[in-house]
């Protein structure tokens, strides 16, 4: 329960920290890490807007997406099944894409179409990365996986390094960061995750902003507790999450956004690395 609450409350800090780190690396003054909270507070004070012709799907989608992420955080906190997370992320994605169809907005549909198309590759990669990290425990139970991947002897296995590389690509794909997506622009040539948000306002938009932040929390927590060296959960998170945020900021600064149609090649490369890792398992 405390873990879920921490996820709900602290998630917006992650994108905020990344933005601050990015601004620092680029020599700008930038915003404070708590800027996302200010945005959420501002949005919370405004009423949601229903464009003409939209229906119940448009209205329910932000709540459904947020509920899916809440359930995912709950699964993570209770040590549930890792593969269930894939379905919950898909539910959030599907709800937002269906809402894009409900508005009929071209930009929203453009973003949703790209998101779902890239998800084909991202989901395969995510499942493979989870499979690799499930091998030491021989289980997809998150608690068992965490226990089995603790300690240093696992780092002598080549397959664990493959898992780490594959999950690094999962991180950029699932959090919508460069080089896969650029959360800072609303340029229709490049946008993916921002597209379906355009019609939303008020608390609906606040939910969707929180969903994006919760994706960061979920994926980076998985990275910290399964893939990186870890011991005690709380201490690991306190150290690893800021480090991961700084790393993402560094990648965003150094790496330009990729052409959208090139992204599957990148994710496919990750899948090949993961398959090589599976083939390299100790017999």
């Amino acid at each position: 329960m405390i873990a879920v609450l921490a996820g709900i409350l602290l998630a917006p800090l992650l994108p905020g920290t990344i933005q601050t780190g990015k601004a620092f690396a680029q020599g700008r003054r930038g915003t404070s890490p708590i800027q996302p909270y200010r945005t959420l507070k501002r949005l919370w004070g405004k009423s949601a807007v229903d464009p003409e012709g939209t229906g119940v799907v448009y209205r329910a989608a932000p709540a459904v997406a947020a509920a899916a992420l809440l359930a995912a955080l709950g699964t993570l906190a209770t040590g549930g099944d890792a593969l269930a997370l894939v379905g919950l992320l898909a539910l959030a994605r599907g709800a937002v894409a269906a809402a894009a169809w409900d508005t009929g907005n071209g930009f929203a549909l453009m973003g949703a179409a790209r998101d779902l198309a890239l998800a084909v590759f991202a989901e395969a990669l995510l499942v493979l990365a989870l499979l690799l990290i499930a091998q030491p425990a021989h289980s997809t139970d998150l608690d068992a996986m965490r226990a089995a991947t603790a300690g240093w002897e696992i780092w002598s296995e080549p397959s664990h390094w493959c898992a780490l590389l594959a999950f690094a690509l999962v991180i950029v794909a699932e959090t919508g960061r460069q080089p896969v997506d650029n959360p800072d622009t609303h340029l229709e040539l490049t946008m993916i995750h921002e597209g379906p948000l355009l019609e939303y306002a008020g608390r609906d938009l606040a939910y969707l902003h929180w969903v994006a932040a919760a994706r960061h929390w979920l994926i980076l927590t998985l990275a910290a507790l399964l893939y990186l060296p870890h011991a005690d959960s709380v201490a690991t998170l306190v150290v690893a999450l800021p480090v991961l945020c700084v790393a993402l900021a560094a990648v965003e600064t150094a790496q330009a956004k990729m052409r959208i149609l090139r992204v599957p090649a990148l994710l496919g490369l990750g899948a090949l690395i993961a398959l090589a890792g599976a083939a390299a398992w100790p017999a």
Partner: protein
Amino acid sequence: MLAGAGALIVALGGATAVWRLRLGLGVQAVGMAVLGAAGVIVVVGGDAVGAAWRAGVSPALGLDGLSGFFLALLAVTAVPALIYARDYLRSGVVGALLAAFLLALSGLLAARDVSTFLVFWELMTVAPAAAILVARPDAVGRSSVFAYVAITHLGGAGVWIALLLGPGSAVAAVAALVGFGTKAGLVPLHSWLPRAHPVAPAPFSALMSGLMVKVALYGLIRFALPGPAWLGFVLLGVGVASALGGALWALVQHDLKRLLAYSTIENVGVIVAALGASVLIADPRWSALAFAAALLHTANHAVFKALLFLGAGAIERATGTLSLDRLGGIARTMPWTGAAMAVGCAAIAGLPPLNGFASEWLALRALAELALEGGVAHAAAGAAALAGIAATAALALLCFVMVAGRVLLGAPRGAGAGGDGAAASGGATMGGHAATAGGVAASRGAAAPGDAPGGMRAALLFLAALCVALGVAPGLLLPRLAELAPVPVHVPTALGLDLPGAGSLPLPALALALVVATALLIRAGGSRRAAPAPTWVCGQPVTPALGWTAAGFTKPLRLIVEVVLRPRRTLALDADGALRYTRVVGSPAGRLLYRPAVRGALRGAAVARRLQTGNVRTYAAYLLALVLGLLALVQTGALG
């Protein structure tokens, strides 16, 4: 008893008067419900009734757990389909054929000897063919039926070989794979399926996609499993290829029922991949659970595919079209049908907390177990299959978000919305181009239809409720299914999927959490304001022509996988000076298998025709040569 009931059903169903048709369909529904109850009793009780399977030809009937499960599944889809048919069917002949089809399906499941099985097998092939010819007496119907009968009969030879040889040998296993695989729509023997399923009347489509392909899988399970390891690898490969191929080709369809038919290939692929995993996994517990995953997905697919096909029939009846580019706003004009279809779309896309998620999770978990089991071959094959099935699930999400968005959501679209004049000729237009250049004036746009009549609505809602029930509590079914595996195992009964010592998925808790959280978040959403304007489209007036088409939504993915799809695009000038853009996506199976086969057959026929000169003297010479040859053989003693 079974045959007598069937004959009665056929006799009643054959009546032409509407009330007699309805009475006949009602009697059929009751009969199917009774048969389904028998199946449930056999599955739950665990005891086989009637004869055991024998290799002989003397007729024998009986039920065991496996056929009982499929019979119960038949009833679960057939009863709603029949109730639906009461309001849908107008032709007594089609009603009678429906009865014959159901008789064939149930007879096949109850058959306990070779001859009975083969008789019902052929009847099962012929009945839908006849129904298509009655319902669609045009060139499209005839060519679909020809492809269907030709391919399933050629493949069906495999069924005969497999049954007459009996299980055990490699030849029989390959023959069973080809024979039953053709009927199940496995790649590359699938190409009849997307032609035949969409043109049949809706109750037939639902039963063909929901049950007939599953009955073929029943045959495969019965006559090819448990098999050697190579069979497991073949099943895994063919399953993943079917899943990915079916999902990809579903995306490029423009006709709702055709899309659903391709998605059937995809789901059969998932089932067969799970069966392959069950063959390969050495641990008996996980082998049985993989088998149970296959059967659970079989049941789930039967439910949601029947729902979607019946819903598509209701939409076609109301709007006069199945073209994705002309439909729209069904959720508003037909709220009940729309809601049921929305549940079906979410279920088939594998979204929690519906049934597609439960069985896909179990299938993924089984494939992960295959990979984790050890050994390089199993690890690589399991991991690759796992990635393939995960990608398939994401493709299904893309596909059915598109279907739900295009067909159910938004405003009702008229004929001008995106236009698809070329779709009828096998091509497909790209939204904007056709709307401006083609200027298609379709006569049958999606006018404001009313919701489906009571019987059809009841059938759809029942199946939608079943999607929810099977999604929340699949654990009630799982122990029964695990006991049907070649090596049965005991799984404790629970509501969610609780796997002994191997993790679990508490589906009821997950569903409850999702529903409660969504409700609370909507409540917390506060006041809403209706905007006085429609969505922003850069200041232009909003017209239906600006709406996105199905082709537009799948464009990013189609560009990514263009190298696989290999579309042929043409830009032509019409006689009236309008530009027309068409895009046709061929099939690699057609290019690599069917076309060479047809070419070879025609070349062989040309060679054979040289013998046929039409000259009497030549034929006399043939006879003489034959007689001389036989005499020579007798002389040498070769003919005794």
